[in-house]
């Protein structure tokens, strides 16, 4: 029996906050672990702000907000995770950083606890290998923004046991998301399909196929995509895409994942998309 009640989220950046919010809204108590008080407070502020905005828009009652915020427990002490049934790691995409925090968590949680990573770029199997109970380790890949995106990829590492996958799928469904089970291959399903497509668009744009605006319009109107690929890249952040696709390329040596030269140039020039105000579509000269 793998009842998941108490959840812990490691890191309260964009993904960590979103995941904590999803879990708390579904009624789980969520411990949020950060490295220092300032970051923990900032994360809590961000979550409170997001809930206040929901109240302002009439999408959430004040009682619901307070109820939800009461379930969030920011901490800087890993010992506070000792009672957790499920740990979701959402720290920076850096193998060494993830290893260090996961080792610390492994020392305090029960051997029966399920520990997961929200990585999109690293091998889940490789992270499982450093755990004392690798069979209790899996990937739990949420999408950004976690509150809005329905999908969660449940990633089976080579070591993951069946009951963990079953428990995670039912957990994902209980927090109102759609679970798909995937093997631990680079990019899982979504990024395996998305990254080559985005790279292909960047390369074709660089070769002068059409204007950035016309490429987006064609795919929005022709295929019913909500956001055209170049707007999507601006939204994701060109540096984030470059990092993800370079990781997938390193893991597979598959040409389809190789960062196109224009992408690398734009990242070098600090044109990272919406967050810097200049990207494929956000600069007048480019559009």
């Amino acid at each position, binding site marked *: 029996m793998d009842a998941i009640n108490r959840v812990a989220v490691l890191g309260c950046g964009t993904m960590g906050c979103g995941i904590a919010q999803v879990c708390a809204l579904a009624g789980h108590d969520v411990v949020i672990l950060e490295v220092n008080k300032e970051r923990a407070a900032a994360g809590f502020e961000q979550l409170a702000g997001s809930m206040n905005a929901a109240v302002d828009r009439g999408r959430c009652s004040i009682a619901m907000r307070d109820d939800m915020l009461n379930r969030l427990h920011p901490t800087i002490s890993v010992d506070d995770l000792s009672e957790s049934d499920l740990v979701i790691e959402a720290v920076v995409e850096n193998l060494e950083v993830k290893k260090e925090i996961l080792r610390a968590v492994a020392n305090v949680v029960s051997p029966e606890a399920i520990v997961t990573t929200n990585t999109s770029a690293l091998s889940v199997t490789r992270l499982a290998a450093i755990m004392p109970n690798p069979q209790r380790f899996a990937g739990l890949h949420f*999408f950004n923004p976690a509150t809005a*995106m*329905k*999908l969660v*990829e449940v990633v089976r590492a080579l070591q993951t046991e069946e009951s963990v996958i079953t428990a995670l799928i039912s957990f994902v469904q209980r927090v109102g998301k*759609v679970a*798909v*089970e*995937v*093997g631990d*291959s680079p990019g*899982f*399903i*979504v990024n*395996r*399909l*998305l990254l*080559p*497509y985005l790279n*292909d*668009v960047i390369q*074709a744009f660089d070769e*002068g*196929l*059409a*204007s950035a605006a*016309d*490429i987006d*319009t*064609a*795919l929005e*109107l*022709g*295929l*019913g*995509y*909500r*956001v055209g*690929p170049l707007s999507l890249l601006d939204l994701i952040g060109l540096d984030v895409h470059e990092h993800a696709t370079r990781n997938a390329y390193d893991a597979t040596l598959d040409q*389809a994942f190789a960062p196109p030269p224009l992408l690398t140039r734009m990242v070098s020039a600090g044109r990272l998309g919406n967050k810097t105000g200049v990207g494929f579509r956000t600069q007048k000269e480019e559009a």
Partner: protein
Amino acid sequence: MSEPSFTVGIIGAGTMGSGITTVMVRSGHRTVLRDTNAECLVTGGHNVARFLDKSVSIGKMSSAEARRAKDNLVLSAQDADLSECDVVVEAIHEDLKAKQELFRHLSDVCKPETLFHTNTSTLSVTAIAAGASNPERVVGTHYCNPAPLMKLVEVVRGQLTSDDTYSRTIGFIASLDKKSVTTKDVPGFIVNRFLIPFENNCIRSLESGVGTVESIDLAVRHGLRHPMGPFTLLDIVGLDVHRAVSLSLYEQLRDPRFAPPPLVERMVAAGQLGRKVGQGFYNYDQAGLIGT
């Protein structure tokens, strides 16, 4: 104030030809629908009328508007009826020789200023234009299926398309309440250029066991927010059609991403062509989804 009105010729009364004809008559353009096959011509005319009637019944159009649109339509088996056309849209089967011959012939029949539009989706506009005695008048206008419902038209400039032909074409497409995008004459233009490798990648992911038909469809719908999953879409398009488009692009580009994956070849060989036969990536028998 009414929009400027054109006289338009549509060659080929198949799915695309009749769909484009519907767009034209609805926009107030007198339209000559031409097909050498009399039976096909009648069917095409019926399809236009049926679409307009349906638009009335679902409240998208008044019956007076539908009547005016129908009055704009002329079914023709004679080339002479094309002589007054300002724009001729070619929507015959995807055969380079046939399209080249058609435009060569039309150069003799039509006015010197007539715009020649090809609705090809996989052939080179430049190569098609090369068959016309005045290739500068030929431009690609690629409508999406179903043409009356889809907003997009890809305008494709061939190597020899003149600026005048291009700019008059952009003005004409605007009169149809469509959104045009301009693309170079490269295989697949924009939409198929990106859709076909994406779909083939989905099929290869299925082949290699990364996911199932259901999990990949779910992941694409909810993780990428596409309106439908790739296998649902492929079943609607038809595996035979997907194979033909992929192969045509592959032969032009020699890029393996466009090559139909082995699973597609097997499914086509086995007659698992998708919805139209009740079996593709999904089975439509039990669901009772087979329709005409």
